[in-house]
């Protein structure tokens, strides 16, 4: 695998993205939220503090990850659709990802 082969996306192309409020999309998703157990946690906030790009803020398809004014990563696990992207995609493998407890989490109506 070679990093250099990838062209960066040009600013013009990026500018054609259509801004979306992810909450509008998630309104259609059915959840059985487990209020007592967060199945996703940050292993070490110190690692996130040193992360320059915070890709999780963008690639998470449910916008689970947010960053506060102090630079701390906040995990809104309630919105998680359990795809696993953060576990795999975090460049520092700093996401502690577990299955929600049985019966909890997303329950697709159509799938």
């Amino acid at each position, binding site marked *: 695998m070679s990093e250099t082969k990838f*062209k960066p996306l040009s600013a013009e192309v990026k500018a054609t993205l259509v801004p979306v409020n992810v909450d509008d999309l998630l309104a259609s998703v059915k959840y059985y939220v487990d209020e007592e157990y967060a199945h996703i946690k940050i292993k070490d906030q110190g690692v996130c503090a040193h992360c320059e790009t915070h890709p999780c803020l963008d690639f998470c398809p449910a916008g689970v990850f947010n960053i506060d004014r102090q630079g701390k990563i906040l995990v809104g696990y309630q919105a998680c659709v*359990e795809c696993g992207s953060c576990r795999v*995609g975090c460049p520092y493998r700093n996401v502690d990802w577990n299955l929600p407890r049985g019966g909890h989490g997303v329950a*697709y109506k159509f*799938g």
Partner: protein
Amino acid sequence: MSTKLTYDAIVVGGGPAGLAAAITMVKGGLKVLLIERGRFAGAKNFFGGVMYTHALAEILPDYWDRRPPFERPVTEQGYWMLSADSVVRIMHKSEQYRKTPAGSYTALRAKMDPWLAQQAVDVGVLLITKTAVLDCIRDEKGRVIGVSTDRPDGDVYAPVVVIAEGVNNLLTQKLGLINHDLPPQYIALSVKEHIGIPAKDLQARFNLSSADEGVAVDIFGDATMGMPGLAFLYTDRAGVSIGIGVLLSELARHNIKPYEILARFKNHPVIKPYLEGGESLEYGAHLIPETGYDGMPKLMADGVMVAGDAAGMVDALHREGTNLAMIAGKYAGETAIEAHHQNNFSGEFLSSYRRRLQKTFVLKDLKQYRHLAEFLESTPHFMDTYVGLVNEAALRYFSAHGIPKREMENGIFRLLTKKRSLFGIGQDMLKLLRGMRG
């Protein structure tokens, strides 16, 4: 002290692989427990998607009489090569697709999987939902002898366990069947919306004469902003499934929100008219393991076999997965039945599961396309370059400019060589050929 709950076989996961394994084993006389973490089988499942009936027929020969809740038969399919403002379509429509049952149907997993689960229950599978499997239980020699769950007193035992846990294969990793997590450069993150459109409007837009016709299209190029990946547009009964899938590593590299790529795609002048007035009924996301033949875990160990997404059984090129999963589940099930007959559950004995799969399209196809993921990874410009080119060439070809046609042809050729050297084109084609031929 609770009594030890023992079965002939335990299946982890109520998707196509797990259900196929469970049905096969029950039909072979085994007492089977299937454990599903969702509220129902299919609650966590999400795909494009198209299902292939050949696989269902192998699991349930009378599946058609059991009225599977398909959306539409696929009677027209193909590729759209999308540039920023135009499209070149390669579509195949054939009377050959008009069979009942058809070869493939669009489907929605939260309807399909519960139906398949009901068939499993009807033949005698014990299905336990809302229960997450936390780990495999192993004896002192490391052999898998059961699983622990998140229920109180939730340990259950069986001499053979089929793991069909899906793409997030935590149990498979814990067992050491693969020594690393999914590599993000070989994993596609797909996001999809199911958009409701009245059947009458849908049929008019897609040129379908009735509910017995349907379209499945894979779309390249501008749909994923030139990043390695694809978009899809499938007709459901009264609506469409529309989505994009992009390598997770690319999304991370570019700090891009996948649903904004989807929104951009939906807004494309070629796509938008199909969705007009539609109502977004559901959004979701799923990972697709495109790790390929060389990235698969070991398929078995003492007392355990792995099937489906958990084992990376996806043919990304032909958007096949559920059929590979079902066939793998079936062979895992047959192997478990034989293991019971011989009273031998060793990894060595269970390796006949892999040998059986090697004789089928499942491992043959995965093997053939083993270099395809590398090809896409090492040639990320491929789609973008050629899709753009095809559209520009088409525009020149179909326009009358008042110039001699030979000049037009030369212009197209120059367009090609400007974008990519002839040597580069040759390399791309060779690599593609290698990726396709295996």
